[in-house]
């Protein structure tokens, strides 16, 4: 089992530790619902050091990513700008979803999921060598996500001197290298905030300083309810190598237009021509109960589907989820919850962002 540089901080804070893809991670410190509300209303922090930062360096890096990613790195023209993308197999199955930062023409930075990092690295390396691109996983770094309406204000004074002014001026979905740190205005909660990457040995001091500044430690449990409310997919739940971005609510991340070729493009063009058979939708449960992944979804005419992620939404105080259903599914479905069919409404995520509810209840 692997531990992040903040493991001792989690134990000291009373965290319940679970095995998360081979990492000993905090799932909750006290009340998951209180942690969730702290992020929607004030500021919370997550240890996301299990995620893997990968530096790609070399003159061929833009060409490499242009070929590897379904989203178009040609959109990245301003240094620091980030892009969310899927990396696909030739049949358009999703190998991983990731964030890519454009830093300069010889340096792009990726952040990939913990559980997929090894296969991602192998996949990328196989294609990087011929272009002379060096692939460097940065396990020497830790990452703390500080999220919530007060997150940037509470974190600002704790950044190194060199980072403070540029971090304050950072636009949404931009990242900024400063000394050995990397401060990005990104996240996985639907709230404003920073994801701060820094040398592992400096992480405990930042964590403790954030704690002293009133930032609440939040576990993976709250991270999951926050991302679901924000309408963000979780790799392994909502998509994997057996489904394409079109079947995962991620068509907005795919650029088919133009002459750019990328791995999975031909398969996606064929799917688009034929019309995808399945789609990922948001669900709002209309009765008491809780949607959970793998529950069966029954539609009137179109056939059956499955809940891919489900939870109780602390912001809506209702159960919400994502489900993969036949493409012809209409506005309402029934979900088999412990042997009972309960009605749910099909809604367009996000469910909640920036402190407020985003759907009709």
């Amino acid at each position, binding site marked *: 089992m692997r531990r992040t540089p903040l493991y001792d901080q989690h134990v000291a804070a009373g965290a319940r530790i679970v095995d998360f893809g081979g990492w000993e991670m905090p799932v909750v410190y006290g*009340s*998951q*619902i209180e942690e969730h509300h702290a992020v929607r209303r004030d500021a919370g922090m997550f240890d996301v050091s299990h995620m893997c930062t990968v530096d790609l360096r070399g003159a061929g890096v833009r060409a490499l990513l242009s070929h590897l990613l379904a989203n178009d790195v040609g959109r990245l023209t301003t240094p620091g700008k980030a892009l969310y993308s899927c990396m696909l197999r030739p049949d358009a199955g999703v190998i991983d979803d990731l964030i890519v930062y454009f830093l300069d023409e010889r340096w792009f930075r990726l952040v990939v999921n913990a559980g997929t990092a090894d296969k991602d690295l192998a996949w990328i390396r196989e294609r990087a060598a011929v272009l002379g691109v060096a692939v460097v996983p940065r396990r020497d770094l830790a990452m703390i996500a500080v999220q919530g309406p007060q997150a940037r204000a509470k974190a600002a004074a704790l950044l190194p001197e060199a980072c403070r002014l540029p971090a304050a001026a950072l636009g949404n979905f931009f990242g900024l290298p400063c000394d050995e740190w990397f401060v990005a205005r990104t996240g996985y909660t639907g709230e404003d905030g920073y994801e701060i990457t820094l040398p592992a040995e400096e992480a405990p001091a930042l964590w403790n300083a954030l704690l002293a500044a009133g930032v609440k430690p939040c576990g993976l*449990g709250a991270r999951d309810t926050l991302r679901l409310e924000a309408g963000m997919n979780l790799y392994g739940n909502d998509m994997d190598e057996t489904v394409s971005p079109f079947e995962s609510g991620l068509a907005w991340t795919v650029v088919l237009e133009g002459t750019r070729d990328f791995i999975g493009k031909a398969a996606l063009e064929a799917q688009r021509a034929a019309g995808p058979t399945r789609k990922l939708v948001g669900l709002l449960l209309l009765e*008491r*109960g*809780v949607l959970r992944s793998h529950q069966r979804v029954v539609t009137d005419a179109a056939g059956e589907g499955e809940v891919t992620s489900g939870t*109780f939404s*602390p912001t809506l105080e209702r159960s919400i989820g994502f489900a993969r259903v036949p493409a012809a599914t209409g506005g309402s479905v029934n979900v088999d919850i*412990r042997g009972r069919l309960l009605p749910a409404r099909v809604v367009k995520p996000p469910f909640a962002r920036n402190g407020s509810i985003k759907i009709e209840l």
Partner: protein
Amino acid sequence: MSNIPGDLRYTKSHEWLRSLPDGSIEIGISDHAQAALGDLVFVEVPEAGRVLSAGDACAVVESVKAASDVYSPVSGEVLAGNDLLATQPEMINQDPYGQGWILRLRPTGAAGGADLLDAKAYAAEVASAS
């Protein structure tokens, strides 16, 4: 450390039982169980009049993490489910042995205590499982 009151009896599946003066029995889930489940968001309690056999699933407690059945440790007829839990499921987290009770029943026959644990035995059970 979880709270395990000495005047109650327990099951290995983490229910507690309190014998009330009128001969009825109050049932809930232990402090250890509520802590393991996390924040409760939904509780389904049985209706009065339902007849239960020992071992029957008699309630559902659902937390942010998972749904779990509650099993009746004894046979009997349900006198009441705790309706407060419909609107305040978090009572089980806040007061598992008090306002977080789940049901009361009138036991039929001998309230078969063979499989029930006293506080000391339950504490040992919790310690060995963690």
